[in-house]
């Protein structure tokens, strides 16, 4: 314990009376009033004031500490949510890529199917057209041959056969040309 001389005690007392200014902190706990009633009361008041201030500060500090804990917990929760969101986003991107790939595959398949159908249709048309050409050619040739064998007048039939054959030949080349053109265009499109 430390003892202050009367002048120092008087100065501290005067300061407390004039300015309400007291010593504070643990130093108060080691000052001996040395039998001075007034200074003893000063020490009690100073200690009480110091404790009151510390109590207030302790409450505020505890509140801040509690808020800090809540904020930290919220931050951790946010980080976890951000992580979950990032994972979900990555998964969604992967799903989008997969869906696009599936769509491209489906479109490719559909295109192929359409082309196949077109080719089948063209093939059918060609076949029918060839059969018609061959049928007409064979029929007119048979009629012309029959007329020649029987010795009938072939003036009209001969010119007709000739015309017919040239038309059929032209048409068949036209059909083949068209088919080749379509096939060439399709290949270029791919």
């Amino acid at each position, binding site marked *: 314990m430390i003892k202050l001389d009367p002048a120092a005690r008087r100065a501290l007392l005067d300061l407390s009376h004039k300015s309400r200014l007291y010593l504070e902190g*643990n130093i108060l*706990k080691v000052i001996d009033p040395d039998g001075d009633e007034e200074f003893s009361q000063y020490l009690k008041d100073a200690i009480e004031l110091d404790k009151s201030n510390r*109590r207030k*500060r*302790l409450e505020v*500090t505890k509140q801040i*500490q*509690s808020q800090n804990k809540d904020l930290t917990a919220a931050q951790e929760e946010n980080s976890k949510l951000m992580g979950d969101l990032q994972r979900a986003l990555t998964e969604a991107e992967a799903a989008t890529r997969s869906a696009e790939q599936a769509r491209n595959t489906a479109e490719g398949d559909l295109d192929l199917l359409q082309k196949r159908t077109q080719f089948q249709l063209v093939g059918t048309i060609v076949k029918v057209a060839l059969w018609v050409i061959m049928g007409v050619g064979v029929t007119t040739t048979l009629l012309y041959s029959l007329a020649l064998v029987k010795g009938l007048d072939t003036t009209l039939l001969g010119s007709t056969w000739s015309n017919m054959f040239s038309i059929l030949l032209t048409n068949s080349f036209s059909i083949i040309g068209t088919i080749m053109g379509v096939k060439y265009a399709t290949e270029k499109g791919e």
Partner: protein
Amino acid sequence: MMINSILLVDDENLFHLVFEDACSLLDIALHLQAIDSADKADHLFREWSKDPTARPDCVFVDLNIVGSSFDGIELIRKINNEHGNGCVTGIISSSADKAEIAKAQSAGAQFWIVKSDEIEPRLEAFKSDYLGYKSKKGSFKVYA
């Protein structure tokens, strides 16, 4: 009985204020020094081994001291085994993990105080047991 001086080693600076105010209100210590690193504490103890006048009577150490190269249990082991075992040492932590408590006890810790919003009753109980710790007669105790 009031402890002459206490050293608090805790990385949470806000807790320094809480601890200081609680100790002052409960008349636990006359002087309190608070630092935020186990490395700093180790350095201080090296200094105090040369000049022990400023050596604290009691050391409160946090379990996990962020930013330090070793934890609180290792610091207590160092104080007890490398720096002369001249003061009361214990852990003050928000954890109450039994395995860690056992490790602290085997490192030479004399008490374990669980941090909470209501730290004052635990410090008050510690204060009443302090003489036992000082004389090395008090058994290890957990204040939770």
